């Protein structure tokens, strides 16, 4: 009687469908992902029942943190580069190529124009640590107004969104609204978090 030969083959699992699925999902997430921008401040936005979504591009974001500091940001690297040129000319501050490059990659910032070259020369890690004083919005020295105006000249399609912290003082918000009104921006958006609409009134 011949001995029964045991097949010595490793148990194999056909992983092909799993791999298919995994790569499908990887592709999906790679294409749909949009990295959260590296914001200079953490802003805790209030909630509202509004369901309008903010557009993805051509948005000026004016952030106000809980210490009433004002931060300015606009999307689009080319817009930022052109904007920096114009602001530099306006205030007589010159920027070198590295600083321009750094500015085009900064999603938002909160330093006065005079301190901007120094701020942009810092490394990315140092920039995060530095305490940004916020953009001046006083009536004597309203740089925010200039930023908004020059951005609108650079890219006429921009809309303005205000991203205020829950604890930001109304006085600061009011100054910003007045600044925008002076620059003939009468329609703007307030960024909020979602909140369920009450079912009964």
């Amino acid at each position, binding site marked *: 009687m011949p001995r029964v030969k045991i097949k010595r083959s490793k148990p194999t699992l056909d992983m092909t469908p799993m*791999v298919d699925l995994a790569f499908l999902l990887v592709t999906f997430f790679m294409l749909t992902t949009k990295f959260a921008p590296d914001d200079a401040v953490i802003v805790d936005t209030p909630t509202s029942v509004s369901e309008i979504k*903010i557009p993805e591009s051509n948005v000026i974001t004016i952030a106000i943190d809980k210490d009433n500091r004002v931060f300015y940001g606009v999307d689009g690297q080319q817009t930022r580069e052109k904007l920096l040129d114009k602001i530099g000319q306006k205030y007589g501050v010159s920027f070198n190529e590295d600083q321009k490059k750094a500015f085009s990659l900064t999603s938002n910032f909160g330093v006065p124009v005079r301190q901007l070259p120094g701020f942009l020369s810092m490394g990315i890690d140092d920039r995060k640590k530095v305490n940004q004083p916020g953009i001046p919005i006083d009536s004597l020295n309203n740089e925010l107004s200039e930023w908004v105006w020059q951005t609108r000249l650079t890219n006429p399609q921009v809309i303005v969104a205000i991203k205020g912290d829950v604890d930001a003082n109304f006085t600061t918000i009011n100054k910003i609204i007045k600044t925008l009104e002076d620059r003939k921006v009468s329609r703007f958006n307030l960024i909020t978090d979602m909140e369920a609409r009450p079912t009964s009134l």
Partner: protein
Amino acid sequence: MAEVQEKADSGKGGKKRAKKMSVHLDMTPMVDLAFLLLTFFMLTTTFSKPQTMEIQMPVKPDNIEDLTPVKAENATTIILGEDDKIHYYFGLVDDNPELITTDYSANGIRKVLLTPRIRQNPKMVVMIKPMEGSRYKNMVDILDEMKITDTKRFAMVDITQQDKDLVQSQK
């Protein structure tokens, strides 16, 4: 690692055939990588775009005298005070109205905005006057209440000294 698995010899010395080979590819490292990437993208992705509230401020008139004043019976003023309080009164400040204090809860200002006095008067204008001590959340909350109660005619107005005095006198 690709490995070639030979089919076990059947033992019979038959014709010499070309050995059938099935190619097995060890896909484990690839799967590891794929899932690593998958996890990375899943965790870093931001799906929820922030909501926004659109507000339209009135364009500043060239001449302030062109504006028509609101009649007393058509005016409601909501003053956003400190410490998340709301003060409101009907009518005009000159008539020394009764100032009532409430809050932002569902039973607070919302009930007021739903009273027939406001709802059934199509000419009623709600004036929102935030005080210096109020915070941004108060402003968003009150605009939200306007939306919830479907109050169409409202305006953000700067607070006057008279209003401040009225709030002070009630304390």
